[in-house]
């Protein structure tokens, strides 16, 4: 549906920050983060009682028990109800995955925090936690995974556990609590409601029992199908009961409520919760409440997962919105407030998931909302709710959820303008932009129907998935490419540990051409990828075997008909593949460019001299360091280095794609995730020929240049980024983070120019771009550390200069103006 400019303007007039939303936002921001173990207690109690049951049934019963014991709370002034924990910002521990983190923290008497990032405190009932955690010692997913590694690899598996601390260049996902996947809300279940699903499951049970043509072993399959269907029924009933308790509570509260307005609201809450999720929602509000119960269900099923994602929220809310507005039951303002309340709730969600993941994702839950895209008949899917959601994000200004726009050629232009304005107001990142055409192409290539493919949405950081067909991709192993280069430069030895960890590839100081270095590098790379591909799927397989996903299996279509959990292949399409994560491709391209230029082309330094400088972490080699920094850098539309990036990027993918993947029988999928993993990966990597110092962070994300090295402006960066086929078929994430100054977004003409740039990025085959808006803090940092901010340009008509060149007084003037968005 195409929105008139008028409608866009109307959206701008809504006030999302009503007293109610402001109050909830304040409560959320003020709430301390707490580590809780209520879920763990219920789960453990159930687990102890179900030892004789089949594994999947145990997860079903455990989930029902968790929900049964969940706190029922309706907070003051709430309209959409349901909480994950008794505390506003509580995080549940997950001892069934990893009890050791908890025990370790409890053992250290002085530290009451579970996490540096979250600085959360542990619930004081320590004895309870200890007992629960101890129960899982030897039974947790971590134990099972480690055992499997030991069986597969013998004693050497112990290196892997240390590998998390960076002993090797390729890191497996050994930690049971490291995220595996993410569930995306599938709005199709609103069609029948959970009551309808129960009926379907019962009918399937009958069909299975009446099946007469037995073949050998089929009985086992039928028996398993019955278990899965029973779990589904049990899960639906638990969710319906959980919602019903909210209805009861609301009615009870209404009886004693003095304020007549609130009384009415409570009665409406009661009516809503008595109806959904058992029945299909009839109104906008019921649709949101339906979704919220399912969201909580997924959280309670697996708090160790990131997400879940609300998915294509504009698409699934719109029919309810349209109907209610047409019938005069809902105004734009009311809809905005309801969405605003859900936005705050999404920020209440917390997670503890092991120290490594924290560094990877800095505690973010990655609950992604997707807007726009196309409909199955090829039309622009942007609608009134798409605008409304951006308005909510723009006004609420909280970190969750992330928003992604599926950009396509027929997209409502006003919507894109709104999206840029939203970036300006939220200081960037919200929303981010994705290339609709590329995702659809990749789904079609995997065998999806067009109808299913157009339903894709964003997940994780950043994967793309069709909510009713599959789960988001999982990362089974990471390879730190700069670390591989470091090992290649040292002939197979990791200089950090002195350990010989790769094959012998020769003394680089004897090399006479860059090609020889390439060859040594690829030999090491192939070795480490092979190691990862052969061994590291084990951990992933164990988790799939061991964990059950009762709620998620309800959401993924075909699980019910097949009678399979989604982890057992219940999903409609074979999965896109388990991901092999890569980090630091651009760093390596820059490093090769510096060596090629300084050693082999210009012959300014010998390889031996560079190696000495690297070993000394540049100390005493300031000239070499500066020369390496000044060598061609990716991000400047310079073919010298961009060609190398292209080469490294394609070949590093190709090598992974050629490896077998025993976990799925399908090719690996390559992923260059964004997140914050460039910090831990950087900590274990020494100085690199691109001029980077040892232990400092690698470049962030898949397509970012070295900090401050892109001195030719945004168009040059886009050119560099789009010279390579960004998302070849079966590739996962690859993001370009681009810095914009607020002055580039101030007026409508300048917004149009940013949009032209965005469209050119997509025309050139770009996949994912997001903007950071230069903030006052950035400028203060630039004043202090000019060498890192060489690329920051101040643009005024007929004039431009690098910020770092300005005298302090003028810098201060610009800093002052940035408050008001210069």
């Amino acid at each position: 549906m195409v929105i008139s400019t008028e409608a866009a303007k109307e959206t701008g007039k809504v006030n999302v920050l009503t007293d109610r939303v402001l109050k909830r936002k304040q409560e959320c921001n003020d709430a301390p983060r707490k580590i809780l173990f209520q879920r763990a207690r219920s789960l453990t109690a159930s687990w102890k009682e179900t030892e004789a049951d089949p594994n999947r049934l145990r997860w079903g019963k455990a989930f029902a028990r968790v929900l049964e014991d969940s706190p029922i709370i309706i907070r003051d002034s709430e309209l959409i109800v349901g909480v994950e924990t008794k505390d506003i910002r509580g995080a549940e521990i997950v001892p069934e995955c990893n009890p050791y983190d908890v025990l370790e923290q409890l053992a250290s008497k002085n530290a009451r925090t579970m996490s540096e990032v979250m600085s959360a405190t542990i619930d004081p009932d320590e004895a309870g936690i200890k007992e629960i955690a101890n129960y899982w010692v030897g039974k947790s997913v971590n134990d099972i995974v480690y055992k499997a590694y030991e069986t597969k690899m013998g004693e050497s598996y112990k290196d892997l556990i240390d590998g998390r601390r960076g002993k090797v260049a390729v890191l497996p996902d050994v930690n049971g609590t490291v995220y595996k996947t993410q569930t995306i809300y599938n709005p199709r279940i609103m069609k029948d409601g959970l009551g309808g699903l129960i009926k379907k499951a019962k009918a399937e049970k009958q069909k299975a029992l009446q099946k007469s043509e037995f073949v050998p072993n089929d009985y086992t399959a039928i028996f398993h199908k019955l278990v899965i269907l029973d779990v589904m029924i049990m899960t639906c009933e638990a969710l319906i009961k959980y919602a019903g308790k909210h209805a009861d509570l609301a009615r009870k509260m209404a009886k004693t409520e003095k304020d007549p307005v609130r009384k009415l609201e409570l009665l409406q809450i009661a009516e809503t919760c008595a109806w959904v999720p058992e029945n299909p929602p009839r109104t906008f509000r019921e649709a949101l409440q339906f979704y919220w119960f399912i969201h909580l269900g997924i959280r309670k099923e697996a708090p160790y997962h990131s997400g879940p994602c609300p998915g294509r929220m504009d698409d699934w809310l719109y029919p309810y919105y349209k109907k209610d507005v047409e019938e005069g039951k809902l105004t734009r303002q009311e809809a905005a407030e309801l969405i605003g309340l859900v936005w705050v709730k999404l920020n209440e969600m917390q997670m503890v998931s092991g120290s490594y993941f924290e560094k990877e994702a800095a505690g973010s839950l990655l609950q992604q909302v997707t807007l726009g895209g196309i409909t199955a008949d090829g039309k622009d899917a942007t609608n009134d709710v798409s605008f409304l959601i951006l308005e909510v994000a723009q006004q609420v200004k909280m970190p969750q959820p992330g928003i992604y726009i599926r950009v396509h050629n027929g997209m409502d232009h006003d919507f894109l303008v709104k999206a840029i304005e939203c970036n300006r107001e939220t200081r960037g990142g919200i929303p981010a932009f994705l290339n609709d055409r590329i995702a659809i192409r990749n789904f079609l290539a995997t065998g999806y129907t067009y109808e299913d493919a157009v339903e894709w949405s964003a997940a994780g950081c950043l994967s793309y998935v069709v909510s009713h067909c599959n789960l988001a991709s999982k990362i089974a192993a990471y390879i730190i490419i700069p670390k591989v280069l470091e090992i290649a430069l040292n002939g197979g030895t990791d200089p950090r540990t002195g350990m010989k960890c790769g094959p012998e590839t020769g003394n680089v100081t004897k090399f006479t051409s860059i090609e020889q270095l390439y060859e040594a590098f690829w030999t090491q790379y192939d070795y480490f990828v092979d190691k990862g591909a052969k061994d590291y799927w084990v951990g992933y397989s164990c988790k799939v075997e061991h964990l059950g996903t009762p709620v998620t299996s309800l959401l993924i279509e075909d699980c019910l008909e097949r009678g399979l959990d989604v982890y057992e292949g219940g999903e409609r399409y074979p999965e896109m593949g388990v991901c092999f994560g890569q980090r630091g491709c651009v760093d390596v391209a820059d490093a090769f460019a510096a060596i090629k230029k300084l050693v082999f082309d210009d012959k300014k330094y010998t390889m031996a001299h560079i190696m000495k400088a690297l070993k000394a972490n540049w100390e005493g080699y300031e000239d070499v360091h500066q020369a390496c920094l000044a060598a061609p850098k990716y991000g400047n539309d310079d073919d010298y280095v961009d060609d190398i990036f292209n080469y490294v990027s394609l070949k590093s993918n190709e090598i992974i794609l050629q490896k077998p993947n025993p976990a799925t029988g399908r090719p690996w999928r390559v992923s260059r995730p964004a997140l914050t993993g460039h910090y831990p990966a950087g900590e274990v990597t020494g100085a690199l020929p691109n001029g980077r110092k040892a232990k400092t962070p690698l470049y962030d994300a898949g397509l970012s240049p070295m900090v401050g090295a892109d001195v030719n402006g945004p168009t040059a960066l886009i050119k560099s980024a789009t010279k390579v086929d960004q998302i070849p078929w079966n590739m996962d994430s690859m993001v370009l983070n681009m810095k914009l100054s607020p002055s580039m977004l101030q007026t409508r003409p300048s917004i149009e120019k940013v949009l032209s740039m965005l469209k050119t990025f997509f025309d050139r085959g770009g996949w994912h771009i997001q903007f950071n808006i230069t903030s006052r803090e950035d400028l203060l940092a630039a004043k202090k550390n000019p060498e890192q901010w060489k690329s920051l340009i101040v643009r005024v008509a007929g004039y431009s200069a690098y910020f770092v060149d300005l005298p302090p007084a003028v810098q201060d003037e610009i800093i002052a103006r940035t408050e008001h968005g210069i």
Partner: protein
Amino acid sequence: MSTARDGLTGKPEEPGDVLGTVFNIQRYSIQDGPGIRTTVFLKGCPLRCAWCSNPESQNSRPEIAHRDSLCTKCGLCVTACKVRAISLDDKGVSINRQLCTNCGECVKVCIPGALKVFGETMSAGEVFRQIKKDADFYRESGGGVTVSGGEPLSQPDFVASLFKLCRDNGINTCIETCGLASVEALEKVLPYTSLVLFDIKLSEPEAHRKWTGRSNEEIIRNLGLIVKKGIPVIIRIPLIPGINDSDEELKNIAHIAAGFPPVRVNILPYHKFGMGKYQMLDRKYYLEELNTQTDTEVQKDKRLFESFGLVCEVVA
């Protein structure tokens, strides 16, 4: 006129071979004409405006500049300088401009890029190759190339050759000019020019001479000439506090502009971002005390131009 080939052979030269002196090529320029543009800044200007924000553009020869924030005080430049023009203290380097021959030896040894040369001889072909890199962006946004300066009309053969190459490749061309040029120069460049951004700084010839070093009579004549050819013109007026931004003076300027329909007007609020470049070149900036106009003042000035029936935009 200089060319890459030996002028004595008498061979007709290719447009790509014509040489010019360029001091900056800036991609993603969004305030120098429509769409996304690449702005090519040329060296050399006949005016010496007191408020000039690009002092490095004024001289036609290359000049050495020092960017103190990037200087690591290594001292390599001091020894590289053959005429001993460079000295080093706590703040960084200073260059004795009397001695400096702008030979560029110091720049070669400066690894962090704190020393740089403003001004480089480039052929129109080389510059064109740089411009062409953003062709996709021009197409999408309706942009193109803008040649600014310095004064583009001071290097007419170079600009004409460059523009011919651009036009032949479907790239929109624009000059940003102070208006002071010979008729011959105009005749060379205008046939390949899609848009002219034309500065008017002051209305009175004497005041113009006082603040820019030259009278404006020839400038106003050239404006008429360009408008008569039917090339779209946008008049740009930098608002300099106390110098040309009184109502009376702006009315005089508006009166001139209104005499050349269908020109449009851009007004540019004052800024002193160029101050840093004066320091880099060891020159003095005389208008340090002035402050930018407020939004209200600028909007008032905009309405003043509109009251003359002119389309006026604020460009900041």
